[in-house]
């Protein structure tokens, strides 16, 4: 599991943690049922306050990404496939809308944008 916290960013630290764990669950890096470090262990590793990691885990639990099993700790929740696909599409959509806004700002026409998109998409194949 990878967590990189930026002290300079405006986003609160618990939010950064929750977001990074969320992305790793959606992208499949964190598999369903995989156990997560306890709140205190994570706090000690990242050298941050226990309250912050607790808050991050509460966020993730509320959004159904993780479950806490009393005594045994936290695990990545069973993501129902449908919900997972939806979240993936949502993430890509956000990124695309940023790109579109940027393109409009810089006066890039739609055709050029489409061309760029297909080029980039084909590149990795």
């Amino acid at each position, binding site marked *: 599991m990878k967590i*990189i916290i930026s002290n300079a960013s405006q986003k609160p630290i618990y939010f950064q943690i929750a977001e990074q764990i969320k992305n790793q669950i959606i992208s499949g890096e964190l598999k369903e049922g995989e156990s997560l470090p306890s709140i205190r262990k994570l706090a000690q590793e990242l050298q941050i306050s226990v309250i912050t990691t607790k808050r991050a885990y509460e966020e993730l639990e509320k959004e159904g990404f993780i479950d806490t099993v009393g005594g045994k700790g936290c695990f990545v929740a069973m993501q129902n496939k449908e919900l997972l696909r939806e979240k993936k599409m949502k993430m890509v959509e956000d990124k695309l809308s940023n790109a579109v806004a940027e393109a409009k700002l810089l006066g890039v026409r739609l055709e050029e944008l489409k061309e760029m998109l297909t080029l980039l998409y084909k590149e990795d194949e």
Partner: protein
Amino acid sequence: MEYTVEIENLRKEFKGFTLKDVSLRIPKGYIMGLIGPNGAGKTTIIKLIMNLIRKNSGRILVFGKDHIRYEAEIKSRIGFVYDVPPFYEDLKLKSTASAIAPFYPEWNQQLFLKLMDEFELPLDKKLKKLSHGMKMKFSLCLALSHHADLILMDEPTSGLDPVFRQELLERLSHIMLDEEKTVLFSTHITSDLERIADYITLINNGKILFSKALNDVLENWVVIKAEKDLLEKKDIPGIMGYQKTEYGIEILTSDVKKARTLLPSDSITEKASLEDIMYFTNKGDNNA
């Protein structure tokens, strides 16, 4: 560039520790911060300049003169703040001050009284009744009351609250308006230095690692936070130290421009604080 203090391969041997041929120049008209872990030799250097301890070899020039041959004259132009205030505890503040005042030709009693009032120090109270913080303030009062050209301070802010520390820093920058004055002060509270120091000298177990302008350091030194295996894949230019954690790796590099070109997109680079620099150069998993 004129130098108030010039130290050339200074050597001092103790039972468990040796200051190894230290050379250092403190430019006139600037504030130099001296940082380093406990027992790195900060106090030793300051005491050597003041000739409180005898050097084994090396040369020290203060105001261009040999610090032993012209000891009295040099010391009359130095304001010295000790890490442990060495005053007679059963004496009133004003008697201690009046005992040492005649030794300083430039002693200014009005200035002394003004400072004592500003620092809220009771002239008639015995020293033993004061808290550690107030003793440090008294030590400062004495050092600032005779228009010293060189102010030598050994951890002056330890035990003082942020409010007073800020006032002290404001007073220091006020003093620095007159380009003749020079300040060397060792501290463990690096955030103070980041606000006010012009030059930074990092010393580590008896050797000087670097002595540079502060903004050179703050602009070029960064901490890169990235995925764990970043280091194996790429060789980071200017790497000074790194720390592996469970969820990533933090790398200190002194050359942000070169390093930035090699970094993966999801890594974060943040300005390195002096505390980070000391931590990575001293404690990191390696000493690259």
